[in-house]
């Protein structure tokens, strides 16, 4: 059995164009291989050094609502191609959360989108760069 007979694929999504391409790619891979597909959205940072609990709760609720929409749209898109898409939403730093989640849940392939380099990415590396660098399994970066 080849290590590239993918059984569990993880695709990281938000609502960017790169992430849409990543989802398309992941759906095609799963269509071809029969692998199970999970879409993961990462909520990112909450307000740092908050002055009140309400401020944190409000942003958290807003993010929950927003990403519920993103994941719902992804499920609909997968359903149209006859694929059952599992979805999950986790808090935290995107690259760390994606690599941690993939390892913890036994995924053997990660698919991420490339959004193009922003200014900060030249200094720190993009999320896709960091996922590719730290992941325990193969990573497809979709342009």
């Amino acid at each position, binding site marked *: 059995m080849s290590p590239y007979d993918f059984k569990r694929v993880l695709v990281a999504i938000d609502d960017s164009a790169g992430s849409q391409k990543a989802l398309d790619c992941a759906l095609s891979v799963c269509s071809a291989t029969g692998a199970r597909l999970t879409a993961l959205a990462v909520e*990112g*940072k*909450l*307000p*740092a*050094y*908050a*002055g*009140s*609990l*309400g*401020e*944190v*709760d409000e942003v*958290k609720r807003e993010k929950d609502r927003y990403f519920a929409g993103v994941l719902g749209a992804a499920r609909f898109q997968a359903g149209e191609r006859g694929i059952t898409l599992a979805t999950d939403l*986790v*808090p*935290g*730093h995107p690259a*760390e*959360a994606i*690599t*941690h989640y993939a*390892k*913890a849940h036994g995924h053997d392939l990660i698919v991420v989108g490339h959004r193009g380099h922003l200014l900060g990415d030249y200094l720190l590396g993009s999320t896709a760069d960091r996922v590719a*660098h*730290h*992941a*325990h399994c193969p990573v497809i970066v979709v342009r």
Partner: protein
Amino acid sequence: MTATELAAVLAALIVLASIASVELGVSVALLELGLGVVAGNLFHLDPNTPWLAFIASFASIVLTFLAGAEVDPDDFRERFGASLSIGVVSFVGPFLVAWAVTAVLLGWTLKASLIAGTALSTTSLAVVYAVLVETGLNSTRIGKLIMSACFVTDMCTAIALSAIFIKPNAWFPLYVVASIAIIVILPKISPRFFHRYGDRVIEPEIKLVFVAIFALMVVGELANGQAVLPAFVLGLVMSRHYQRHRQEQERLRVVAFAFLTPFFFLRGGINVSLPAVFANLGLLALLLAAKMIPKFGLVLPLARRHVPDHAAFTTLMMSTGLTFGTISSLYGLNAGIIDRTQFSLLVSVVVLSAIVPTAIAQRWFSPDVAGEAATDRGRLPERQPLPGSRPLPAGEQS
């Protein structure tokens, strides 16, 4: 600058802070404080304009009330002993050390050093909460323990502030009786009041809370004291009511954070003298050490006993500070107990304590959420890498 011109400038700063908060993902309170520092030092705004001083003073009591109302009494009871001991030590240790350092080494007056002790011993429930929610730890036992311990420290701060300022006079018994009466009566009448008058645009229930807070402030002033402790306890006894009526609490927060607290934090910032801070960087470091060393020296051993796997994380969380530290410092300045240089140094240390321990805790000591959640469920799982920390590169993982 006229009062209206000052209001217009501050309103512009408030909008700017809100936009920056959304764009940068940094708390609006910290940005308001920061913009207040910049505007105050560049344009020499007058922080003692009566309307500004009044709104900021009311806002500080509303903030205290909200801090009490945000406590979950059930979480607090769950690990009462541990949270009480960590919370009390987290206050008493830095309080005594900061008091001794400022009184003995720096020669501050007794009351000024007590203000320093109070401002530097606080924790920030909100800063801690953001870290816990972001990492998913807020629903774990360790998260609840840290939140409860922060609450205990907040309570100690409120007690200390009330004790420092009180100069009992003939009105003192009235202050005590009226405070107790309001604390007992408001939670009892709130459900019926809410049922009859609540959920309306005119917000009678928020006005009722404001009346209660103003009443506490009036009797506090009559007794030469402050309404901090009664307002905090009033918030605490109202927390169950707000658990049942989340929208009411939300609306109160909206009113507070849209109109009241921005003026409090801006005024705090305007009072900070940057030249005074830069001229006293050594003192700044000393005061920061006076906060951090006792937190680590005294909280860490206790944390090791109660949460041995995450003692450093717990200690760092208990070392944060922001709102109560700013309130304590501003009270000292308003009352003429500390001067502008002392205030500037204390607020700078408070802001640093919001940033530095949080960054260190998130970067290097964030607990394993999956492990904690599973431990809470009564089974020990295979440990996973820390979600809040950098995963090891492939090939280096054990």
